[in-house]
């Protein structure tokens, strides 16, 4: 019966981000959520376990506050969690996150058959951790799957590329990243949330794992995206809609 590892991230809910005066971002009223894409990854792992048996172990890296995310992820049907926690584990480079997860998987998770990641994280959306992790662990990688199945030690996945759909196989253990259309994530109920509190979580501190190396990228600025196109807003009243059409004509994009 397969042991599936699923990676997830507790991220800033971007709907709470506001533009600060001066073009920066106002993080003062932000809330956090389990990254949307990771909900599909967890759902897929749980779906396979429901069909084939086995266990699902979730793994995340984050500051201690991300414990909420571990509980949220567990309420979605995972069996156990591994939480790599340190106040410094905020805005890590994808390579650093991968170093931590790879070490935890090798030394603290035990043998596994499949790792499932979302296509990217909901905050920075670099889409790197999945493919990098496969390389770090030296296993095969299939990215952007829309359908997966396991049988006799082989992963079969359908993946969507620009002009073509490929069905591929890979020997296990392997890593797959999944697109949101692969499933519809469940919405946990009260009972799921209560049960989540009773599931085992292994917390790993910085000292339990080796060094990650320094960051490979340096963020120089994060500014509100509104700078590029100053949106002129219109109401929905008839006169406003006519003004909107006139504005389009004035810009020469309507005949």
């Amino acid at each position, binding site marked *: 019966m397969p042991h599936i590892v699923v990676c997830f991230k507790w991220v800033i809910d*971007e*709907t709470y*981000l506001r*533009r600060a005066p001066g073009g920066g*971002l106002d993080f003062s009223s932000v809330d956090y959520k389990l990254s949307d894409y990771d909900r599909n990854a967890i759902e897929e792992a749980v779906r396979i376990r429901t069909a084939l048996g086995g266990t699902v172990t979730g793994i995340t890296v984050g500051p201690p506050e991300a414990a909420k995310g571990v509980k949220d992820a567990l309420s979605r049907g995972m069996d156990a969690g591994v939480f790599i926690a340190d106040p410094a584990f905020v805005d890590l480079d*994808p390579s650093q996150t991968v170093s931590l997860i790879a070490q935890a998987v090798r030394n603290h998770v035990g043998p596994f058959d499949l790792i499932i990641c979302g296509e990217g994280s*909901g*905050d*920075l*959306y*670099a*889409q*790197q*951790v999945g*493919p990098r992790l496969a*390389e*770090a662990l030296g296993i*095969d*990688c299939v*990215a952007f799957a*829309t359908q997966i199945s396991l049988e006799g030690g082989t992963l079969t996945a359908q*993946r*969507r590329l*620009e*002009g*073509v*759909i*490929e*069905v*591929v*196989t*890979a020997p296990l253990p392997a890593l797959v*990243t999944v*697109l*949101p*259309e692969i499933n519809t994530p469940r919405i946990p109920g009260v009972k799921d949330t209560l049960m989540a509190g009773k599931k085992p979580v292994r917390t790993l501190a910085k000292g339990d794992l080796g060094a990650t190396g320094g960051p*490979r*990228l340096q*963020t120089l*600025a*994060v*500014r*509100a*995206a*509104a700078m590029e*196109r100053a*949106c002129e*807003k*219109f*109401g*929905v009243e*008839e006169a*406003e*809609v006519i003004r*909107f*059409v006139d504005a*389009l004509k004035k*810009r*020469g994009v*309507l005949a």
Partner: protein
Amino acid sequence: MAVLWIFSETTASTKELLGLGRELISAVGGSITVLMGPDGEGREEWAAYGADEIILLPPLADGLAMEAHIPVIAAAAAEEKPDIILLPATARGREMAPRLAQRLDTGLCSNCVAVRWSGGDIEMDRVVYGGAAIQTVKFLTRPVMATVAPKTFSPPVPEEGRSARLRELPPLAAGTVPGVRIVEKREKRRLARDLTQAKVVVAAGRGLEKKEDLALVEEVASLVGGEVGCTRPLSEELHWLPTELCIGLSGVSVKPDLYIGVGVSGQVQHMTGVRGAKVIAAVNRDENAPIFAQADLGIVGDLYEALPKLITALKK
């Protein structure tokens, strides 16, 4: 002086990366190498478009996918140490680039939308927080690596009479052949209408309540002489429209004179595909939807109220 490598599987994205590559290299001097499949198809063109060198990758055994080139490219890059490696932010590029970056132990800017030199450093911009913000990064390691959003950079003007050196890389060593095998390949259906060539694109988003309401969007599109596209949930989850009309990172990129997003929230996956539009317009009832931060003009209001009025106004 900088050595820049480009790897891409399509002609269109190779040209765009050459456009960006020439811009970067012309500022500091250096050379551009294009890595391509063993058939070398179309390579005569690359010299005119700015390539100084073509590297032909070794043939792949049957059933191996493009990613099987990773070990060869990584080994060559580790030995020859190019300063910059660019891939397109296509599905293939977005898988291959992080895997190469991991092998080369270097940083990667994913889905870059702007590049510039600042002092001796390259700075890049990328879109984060679902389209709400732009992150600017610089690189602390070499090579500098990036996947570049499609349709972000224009192909260079070809220069006749340029030539490029040609060389080949040796095949995969035993033991480096990946286990992934293609067992089936299906070409996506091509539609008669080509979104990428449309002058006006009207995109339907999650704000639509039911499939029948697409008629409203289609009517607006026909009145402005445009084509209908959609966000990913509409084609991939609800299956209201064919996959070919999905705009964004995992769909097509468009570059129309006018894009109108109807009930489109403005998530980065979708907006990446429309950044090249001359004018971006939006209709959304949520004043705080990220699309308004990326639009030139926007109607804040319920689309079921706005579209009928828009249709009337456009008919006048």
